[in-house]
């Protein structure tokens, strides 16, 4: 039987506010335990939450970026359960009327675009951390993280492969960073994925029983966990078994998922509107204000790169992979407006390869867009060959000669010979010295042509403009 995998993702994006969602304590990462937990985070008797406007604003930003409906009023609800790192015994979250309702995300898979629908995105507070080591059989509680604002982004079960799920997660990751609501740091837990996975016979409508996989803190783990889980479910079904709805944990070391808790153990969270927080009224003027401050979104930029610069959809998608890369590209083409494709090739090629090699981000790139443009200009106008350009690029990267491309070309003597009369002279010399190959070519041996080009390039120490050499040689031989 052919099986179809059905995936929906729940992503927790930590919002980039300086203070917590319901208290004034700092959200900075990595402080000593419990030094960033105020009386409100500790849930002392009598304390009350006050909503951080910046968190709501970030949620609105996200909603507008995915074409969602912004609910007003939006309601905060209590999700009741006991756990030591949940100080109030309930988490303030949203149940009915989340800030963000609906919306879509466009993803690129194998060169094709696919639309993934969003169910909702709601605001909630993070819990603290339970620490089970170093306490001699006891547990420690660190409440620094308690109350950190999260946007939980829930998709519809619209993805059909781990590749689609990863593409969705990456697109979402790029988007939240693009609009500046989340730093996207997956190691520090700023962007966490849970995957709902089920399988069904291909061609059928009814969704299979799903399992939720928690704790997927990298795109690679997301992919591997989904693949493992789909295989596991298919095997069970093919053996005549049935899937039990449960929450599973992905173990990266063993590359497997295992049961965390079954549906029967699930809490009744007894959601109800939090009486300490009033319904949040989000005015149209506030929405308009947020909208006007939004940057141009990745999708809009992709479309513009295709229509304005005639880039392929693939190039446009790669360049808009992050706002920083797109901004770099735009800064480069401002210097060199006629060479968009050349800029794109170099940013996606040499620059990206070198950044990857050194493990740094484009914001830390030693060559700035103007410096790159100065180099590419010399390729465009024929001053240097593509091969020589790579030498210049290396020098720029290493910071030679104030990162001035022209100075490097000059100093290294990389200018190509583009003077027709100079080239003609050399061509004539080579033709005269290689009568046999000329005869071969004229007898129909195409190979002889390349050999003659080689001779000419050798005679100019590779500096002759290859296009001109080709043209001149052809003219002499055929003419």
């Amino acid at each position, binding site marked *: 039987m052919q099986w179809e995998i059905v995936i929906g993702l729940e992503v927790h994006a930590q919002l980039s506010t300086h203070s917590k969602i319901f208290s004034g304590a700092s959200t900075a990462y990595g402080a000593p335990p419990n030094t960033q937990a105020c009386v409100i985070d500790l849930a*002392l008797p*009598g304390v*009350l*939450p*006050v909503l951080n406007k910046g968190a709501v604003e970030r949620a609105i930003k996200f909603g507008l970026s995915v074409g969602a409906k912004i609910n007003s009023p939006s309601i905060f609800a209590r999700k009741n359960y006991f756990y030591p790192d949940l100080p109030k015994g309930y988490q303030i979250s949203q149940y009915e009327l989340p800030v963000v309702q609906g919306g879509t995300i466009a993803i690129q898979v194998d060169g094709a675009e696919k639309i993934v629908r969003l169910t909702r995105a709601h605001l909630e507070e993070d819990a603290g951390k339970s620490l089970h080591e170093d306490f001699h059989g006891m547990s420690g509680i660190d409440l620094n993280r308690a109350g950190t604002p999260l946007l939980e982004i829930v998709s519809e079960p619209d993805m059909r492969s781990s590749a689609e799920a990863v593409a969705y997660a990456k697109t979402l990751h790029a988007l939240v960073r693009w609009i500046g609501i989340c730093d996207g740091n997956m190691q520090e837990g700023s962007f966490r994925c849970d995957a709902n996975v089920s399988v069904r016979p291909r061609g059928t409508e009814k969704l299979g029983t799903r399992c939720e996989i928690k704790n997927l803190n990298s795109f690679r783990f997301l992919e591997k966990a989904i693949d493992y889980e789909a295989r596991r479910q298919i095997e069970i079904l093919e053996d005549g078994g049935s899937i039990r709805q449960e929450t599973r944990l992905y173990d990266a070391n063993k590359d497997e998922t295992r049961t965390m808790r079954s549906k029967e153990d699930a809490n009744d969270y*007894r959601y109800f509107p939090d*009486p300490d927080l*009033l319904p949040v009224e989000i005015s149209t003027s506030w929405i308009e204000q947020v909208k006007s401050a939004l940057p141009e979104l990745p999708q809009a930029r992709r479309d513009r790169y295709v229509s304005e610069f005639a880039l392929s959809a693939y190039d446009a998608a790669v360049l808009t992979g992050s706002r920083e890369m797109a901004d770099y590209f735009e800064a480069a083409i401002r210097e060199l407006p006629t060479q968009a494709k050349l800029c794109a090739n170099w940013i996606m090629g040499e620059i990206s390869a070198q950044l990857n090699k050194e493990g740094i981000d484009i914001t830390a790139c030693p060559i700035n867009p103007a410096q790159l443009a100065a180099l590419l200009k010399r390729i465009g106008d024929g001053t240097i060959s593509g091969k020589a350009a790579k030498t210049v690029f290396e020098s720029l990267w290493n910071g030679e000669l104030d990162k001035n491309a022209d100075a490097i070309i000059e100093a290294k003597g990389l200018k190509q010979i583009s003077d027709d009369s100079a080239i003609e002279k050399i061509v004539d010399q080579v033709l005269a010295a290689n009568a046999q190959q000329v005869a071969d070519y004229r007898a129909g041996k195409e190979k002889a042509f390349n050999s003659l080009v080689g001779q000419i390039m050798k005679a100019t120490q590779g500096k002759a403009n290859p296009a001109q050499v080709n043209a001149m040689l052809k003219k002499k031989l055929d003419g």
Partner: protein
Amino acid sequence: MFNASLKQLSIQLAGKKISSTELTSEFLQRIKQLNPEYNAFITVNEDLSLAQARAADQMIAAGQAGPLTGIPIAQKDIFCAKGWLTTCGSKMLSNFVSPYDAGVIERFNQAGAVNIGKTNMDEFAMGSSNETSYYGPVKNPWDQAAVPGGSSGGAACAVAARLAPAATGTDTGGSIRQPAALCGISGIKPTYGLVSRYGMIAFASSLDQGGPMAKSAEDLALLLNVMTGFDPRDSTSLQRDVEDYARDLQKPLAGLRIGLPKEYFAAGMSNDVASAIDKALDEYRKLGAQTVEISLPNAPLAIPVYYVLAPAEASSNLSRFDGVRYGHRAESYSDLADMYRKSRAQGFGPEVKRRILIGTYVLSHGYYDAYYIKAQKLRRLIAQDFAEAYQQCDIIMGPTTPTVAFNLGEKSGDPIQMYLSDIYTSAANLTGMPAMSIPVGFGDKNRPIGLHIIGNYFKEAQMLNVAHQYQLATDWHSRSPV
């Protein structure tokens, strides 16, 4: 001195007839002497009180005194006060010394008032007799066989027995007004949102409201001036212009339309209460007011609605008391679940447990719509009844309680009977309207009777005027059991 009004005390302090330190010492001495009998206070801390008194004396000497500077105020043990044991009447918090001040405490501190001690109360404010307190019941100073009412029973007793010039209370379903009525004092629950709930340990967040308890309406006005005001730390706190609640005290009552809800003058009210209320209404007619019969058809639903919503919120509000970070933790336990179970089983009394169970039940999957959502709808209907009633009258009156104070132990085994003590009072919490109780005589066994005055939103100044004019014409409020 123990019978003096706040205004009289303030004049004596300002005129250096007495210092705050002397005044505070006198009250501390009286508490030491009489509290073992009444059990009105859970905590007295002479050092902290006298330090505040000395600071108040300096304020007075520096000419910076306000109307309450140097005056001792008893604080209900539901208000967190920095450095004070703050128990909420529960074993669960029997070891909790607050590291911070509640909004209300801050306001009294800024006014230079002296915290004279933390008063006894029903555990987590859940009760109408003060019998659910972990620290034992409070006695009614008029008759020690009687309950003082609750949950602010310690506060009511302290004022009635002249252990403090005034006190704070909180009112979720009648917890200021019912004990005020049963102890023969005056108390007001202001409009929801006027008094900060920050640092006031939550019972039912959408119903809880702090307020003053004192010997007279005039004293209540001075206390309200200090207690009310916007607090950005409480999202339900209202941002309004500051008002002087004493500004209308002297207005004549001619033309005042008093609404008498027929549902509040029906079966259930005892004869002694009915007759005292009738006499009070006669007095109001003499003062120029007219009475009109009104109807609040949904008012009888207030108790069932209240006993769905209040426990629902309470079940969640009390989840933080888990023995993890503060408060009572069982001495031995086998694992995490066992720690929760034992700590909470030991730390909470039976009434608190009952309400947590009710609240958990009504919020549970499958019951939520039938109970919680239904109750919220009825809550709106009750509010509509009041809105319509205020088309026909300016203020609403009735009995605060159906009977005078009952005996200790009389209802403690029968929760339903106990809950009916709040039959007239809980509607004001459900609607958020201001309501108060003033003494209007004595009934069976010479126990006090309270008149319930319900106002429209933000009509506190008018209500205090209505109460004050009555108190100018009568002397029930100046009767003292001691």
